[in-house]
């Protein structure tokens, strides 16, 4: 018998007989079909809306952080260079405290531009009116508070430069991505793509934050459960550490007798002219003004809980949205001013925010995520006294449990 004949006979054999219909198999299939239909009815109509909302939040949030950073930086620079007086800044319009210049420097050691002596002196001349009549102790406290106000107003200040630097890094990263898509680099093979989809996963996460009063790092864990093929719920628990430092430059007025001692100190002389407009100017002794610098570093630590609802846009990319709760663990905040200032803001101990995220599955077990977080403390308690911390967070998650 020729092979073709053999094949024909085998085919014919298969046409000769039939299997009996088994209704139990249809019942199983009907159950599967019913399950799919119900889940779709529940989720399908509103989940895309949540996805779109998260995307919009992310798209609006990132430029806002950059814009605010840039604006704060510019206003600080303008103030220091003498083109604007502090009175231009509404936060400081009510401040009667003299002779305070605050320069906020973040922990990236990128120093704010140092003002030229003559420029700064111009501003000091205006602000020195009440300098002599104010007790030194009060002045020192207010100096600190003033710095706080400036620092808080500055928000994400110096990060603008960092973002500019990051542009170059990001463009490099894009180039790397293009390279990574070429043959020879990691790609999903058939076996991986055909694996059973993960229903529940526990992941360890780590990352960095960039933003107002929030530049630092985080480590934590998250658990995810796929509710449907597309929709998942996730809970993140993380420890967040932010490292901040601030430099305060203030003008100290000392009697002429102490001039010799102060000359040997590291302080820099700005203006030697007495510009007071006190009621008894003639009785005021001749004084010497010095700019002194105080540096203070402090760290804020938070426990962060972020429940979220996610939607898988495509095979590897998903977006999510949810509330964000942060409890400060150690209160290291600089001491607030003891003088009433309506515009002075502080970082809240319990911080509530809104989070939008985008995740990309690099491999089955590794995910890269970008979060945008916006504080909503002033929305919940409309006192306006809190700093609403907003930041962009880059995270890498590694699955330790997939089922």
């Amino acid at each position, binding site marked *: *018998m*020729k*092979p073709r*004949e*053999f*094949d024909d*006979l*085998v*085919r014919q*054999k*298969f046409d*000769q*007989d*039939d*299997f009996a*219909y*088994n209704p139990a*198999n*249809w019942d*199983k*299939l*009907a159950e*599967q*079909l019913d399950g*799919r*239909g119900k889940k779709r009815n529940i989720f399908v109509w509103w989940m895309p809306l949540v996805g779109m909302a998260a995307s919009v939040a992310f798209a609006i949030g990132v430029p806002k952080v950059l814009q605010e950073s840039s604006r704060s930086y510019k206003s600080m620079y303008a103030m220091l260079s003498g083109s604007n007086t502090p009175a231009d800044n509404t936060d400081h319009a009510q401040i009667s405290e003299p002779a305070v210049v605050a320069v906020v420097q973040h922990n990236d050691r990128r120093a704010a531009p140092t003002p030229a002596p003559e420029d700064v002196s111009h501003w000091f001349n205006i602000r020195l009116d009440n300098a002599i009549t104010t007790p030194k102790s009060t002045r020192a406290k207010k100096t600190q508070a003033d710095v706080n106000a400036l620092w808080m107003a500055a928000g994400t200040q110096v990060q603008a430069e960092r973002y500019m630097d990051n542009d170059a890094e990001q463009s490099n990263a894009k180039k790397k991505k293009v390279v990574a898509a070429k043959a020879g680099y990691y790609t999903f093979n*058939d*076996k991986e793509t*055909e*694996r059973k989809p993960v229903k529940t996963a526990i992941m360890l996460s780590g990352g960095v934050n960039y933003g107002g009063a929030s530049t630092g790092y985080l480590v934590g864990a998250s658990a995810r459960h796929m509710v449907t093929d597309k929709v998942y719920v996730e809970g993140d628990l993380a420890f967040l550490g932010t490292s901040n430092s601030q430099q305060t430059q203030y003008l100290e007025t000392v009697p002429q007798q102490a001039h010799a001692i102060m000359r040997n100190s590291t302080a820099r002389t700005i203006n030697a002219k007495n510009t007071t407009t006190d009621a008894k100017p003639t009785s005021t002794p001749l004084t010497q003004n010095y700019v002194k610098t105080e540096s203070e570093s402090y760290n804020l630590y938070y426990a962060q809980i972020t429940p979220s609802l996610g939607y898988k846009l495509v095979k590897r990319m998903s977006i999510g949205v949810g509330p964000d709760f942060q409890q400060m663990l150690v209160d290291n905040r600089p001491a607030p001013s003891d003088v009433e200032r309506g515009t002075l803001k502080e970082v809240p101990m319990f911080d509530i925010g809104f989070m939008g995220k985008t995740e990309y599955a690099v491999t089955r077990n590794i995910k890269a995520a970008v979060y945008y977080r916006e504080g909503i403390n002033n929305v919940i308690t409309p006192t306006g006294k809190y700093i609403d911390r907003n930041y962009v967070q880059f995270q890498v998650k590694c699955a330790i449990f997939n089922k």
Partner: protein
Amino acid sequence: MPTYTEQDIIAGCRKNNRAVQEHLYKVYYCVFLKVCARYAKSMQDAEQLLNDGFLKVFTQIDKFSNTGSFEGWMKKVMVNTCLDYLRSNYLKEEMTMHVNAMPIEESNLSVSNEGLESIEFRELLTIIQGLPSMTRTVFNLFVFEGFNHKEISEQLDISEGTSHWHVHQARNMLQKKIKKTEQQKVTYEAKRI
């Protein structure tokens, strides 16, 4: 059983009409269970594959463009379901084998017409299910689906020579097993007498 035209069935399935879906399932149950049974290792696996295939048919029916045969489209879905199942479970281990196998010239087989005709359909199915996964898959694609060796090599990511080798191997193995089954039958009949 209510009568439906093919267009009624397609429209009903698109509307997720359970009665129409059940009707379609009943009509094609035997046809496609045979297809799945040839690729699967057991009847239990075959029934599962059949349901997976029908699930794809019902959920992806919008992809059917109404231009070709509906039955042909469904059969394609079923065969692809079977291939996906085999790729993920069995074929990977066997794919690296015989990569350099050369095409084998077809030669006459020693099996007789009588031997093949006397064997039952269920017995033949069991013999085919007993073939190695890759050999069984290539044989099914070549003999039942009408694929040529080039198409098989593209589907399964093997060389054409390997595809030839598997078909040849399948015929030889079937031939031996059919002979063995025949002998067992004769022995059994002799004992009865």
